């Protein structure tokens, strides 16, 4: 048992895996476009992106099922590129479980050990420890087809961990499960990672899942990593407009810069974060998260003066929605820019469609981008 469950990991920030200028081309098409990334030892890193963004191809190259067109994959400084997948000492959990249908749960988990010709006694001991870890002791003699989806995926995880690989790859492992079960398994997975201290590279298109599980998220788009960091940083301070629109919801305002901390919107001045090298009349993009903005009726706005560092834009309510714990208010400004304001239901929002409204936000909460393309602002973009 001690062979499998190690002491709590020391926070060792050593780089375990390095991807260097990794490319994968299919003819003229670049599925993975010059990716460089360092994965820390013991970290839980998620590749997040829509289908066709290159995240699964990158994982496949890590596993060894795809050969990079060019570039390097280093583990502890040694190249993996010419190492066949069965010698990479990597564990992998697949989307469709991919258990061996003709073997029992126990034999499925013992398979990697049998291939490595481990002595029977040690094999039994390790399989027992794994069955215990994933809480499937009483199902050891069943066939995979006799298990539920969640149980099958736990067998797959046990099979991938039993030989103590350095890295565990997970390719949308919970995609086929329903929401409740998925959340339970996400919690189990997070605890497992904490207990074992193994390096996990996880692929998903579900941003909530990525947020729940990972220490760092790499956001993929068109074969490139367009954002890398903790879920908190990526959400609060997206590095670019694409990440801002891809993660969560966002309001975009197009402004004209008037200096490094001032810009105009619909002819009126707004304060923005200090941004270096802004030219007068340069186009800049302002991003405000709906929950960072406040919607006030003109009466409320009258009694509640604008605090320093805050901005206010006049608009008209187009729709209010009650969503249970939260509520949203869609507004449109005089120039036709649509915005959404989100607030907790408890705070109240006495507005209805057609009402004039003042939208306020703190300039520190709004991100400023000087470069973007229109397609970045479209949530559906990201895949090829």
């Amino acid at each position: 048992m001690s062979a499998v469950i190690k002491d709590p990991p020391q926070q060792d920030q050593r780089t375990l895996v390095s991807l260097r200028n990794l490319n994968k081309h299919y003819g003229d098409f670049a599925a993975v476009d010059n990716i460089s990334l360092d994965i820390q030892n013991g970290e839980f890193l998620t590749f997040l992106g829509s289908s066709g963004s290159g995240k699964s191809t990158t994982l496949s190259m890590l596993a060894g099922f795809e050969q990079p067109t060019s570039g390097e994959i280093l583990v502890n400084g040694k190249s993996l590129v010419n190492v066949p997948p069965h010698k990479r000492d990597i564990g992998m959990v697949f989307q469709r479980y991919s258990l061996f249908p003709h073997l029992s749960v126990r034999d499925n988990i013992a398979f990697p050990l049998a291939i490595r010709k481990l002595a029977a006694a040690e094999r039994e001991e390790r399989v027992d420890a794994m069955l215990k870890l994933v809480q499937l002791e009483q199902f050891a003699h069943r066939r995979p087809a006799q298990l539920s989806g969640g149980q099958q995926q736990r067998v797959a995880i046990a099979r991938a961990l039993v030989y103590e690989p350095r890295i565990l790859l997970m390719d949308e492992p919970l995609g086929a499960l329903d929401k409740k079960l998925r959340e339970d398994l996400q919690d189990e997975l997070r605890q497992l990672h904490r207990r074992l201290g193994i390096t996990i590279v996880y692929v998903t298109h579900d941003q909530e899942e990525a947020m729940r599980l990972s220490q760092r998220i790499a956001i993929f788009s068109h074969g490139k990593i367009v954002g890398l960091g903790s879920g908190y940083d990526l959400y609060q301070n997206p590095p670019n407009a694409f990440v801002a629109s891809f993660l969560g919801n966002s309001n975009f305002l197009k402004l004209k810069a008037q200096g490094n901390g001032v810009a105009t919107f619909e002819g009126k001045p707004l304060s923005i974060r200090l941004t270096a090298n802004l030219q007068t009349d340069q186009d800049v993009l302002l991003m405000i998260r709906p929950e960072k903005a406040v919607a006030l009726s003109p009466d409320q706005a009258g009694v509640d003066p604008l605090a320093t560092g805050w901005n206010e834009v006049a608009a008209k309510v187009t729709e209010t929605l009650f969503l249970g714990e939260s509520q949203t208010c869609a507004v449109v400004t005089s120039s036709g820019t649509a915005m959404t304001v989100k607030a907790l239901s408890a705070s109240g929002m006495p507005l209805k469609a057609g009402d004039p409204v003042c939208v306020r936000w703190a300039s520190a909460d709004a991100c400023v981008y000087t470069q973007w393309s229109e397609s970045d602002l479209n949530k559906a973009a990201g895949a090829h």
Partner: protein
Amino acid sequence: MLLTPNAMSPRLRWGLYSVTGLIALFLILPIVFIVLLSFGSSQWLVFPPPGWTLKWYQQFFSNPEWMDAALASLKVAVLTTICAVALGVPTAFALVRGRFPGRDFLYGIFTLPMIVPLVIIAVAVYALFLKLGLTGTMFSFVVSHVIVALPFTIISIINSLKLFDQSIEDAAVICGASRMQAVMKVTFPGIRPGMVAGALFAFLVSWDEVVLSVMMASPNLQTLPVKMWTTLRQDLTPVIAVASTLLIALSMLVMFIAATLRRRNQARIPS
């Protein structure tokens, strides 16, 4: 839903029942006749038989010519089965997994013997073996039978390989098995129903093959259907009915095995 049994008028329903019954009878009667005749006491194959006897069976089993032919048939069929599976498995892998130009064309080539008239294949193979001086050998029988059996074997294996999720094989590889080990330990068990069905098809094709066999046969080596064919042209003895009955019995046994395996396999997959 006009054609569900309950929605039909009773008249139509009974009409369909009787037509189906007649067709089934039409298919089964020759078999019933030949089996009954093999036990009949008349040596002129009179129906209905005036009495019952086992003497034709006695004659069959005591005649070395018949026994040799039966044994040769069995040998040819077993060897054909082995060769068809040995060739069919790698071919099916190439046709399903391979990514190369001309793959579909190759599939067409491999299944061509199902479409080309048997006589044409027979003449061609005969001409070739005549030139090589190999007619009448076990080799020529097996090679010619493999040609016609292979498409059935390949199609059967291809079907199960297409249904097999390749990520299961990949899982074995990432667990530490080499690609070959993964195929042997994981993929083969997974596609076994298709491999077994392909083997049984090959056996059946060879077991009752007559056109090619007539061409390949020599006085020293002939299969059961060839022996029946040549005997038939000399005299009409009920021993032919015995040979037919045995031919049918083994074929039905093979079909039965195939059906049992299929059922057991389906039972393993939960709904």
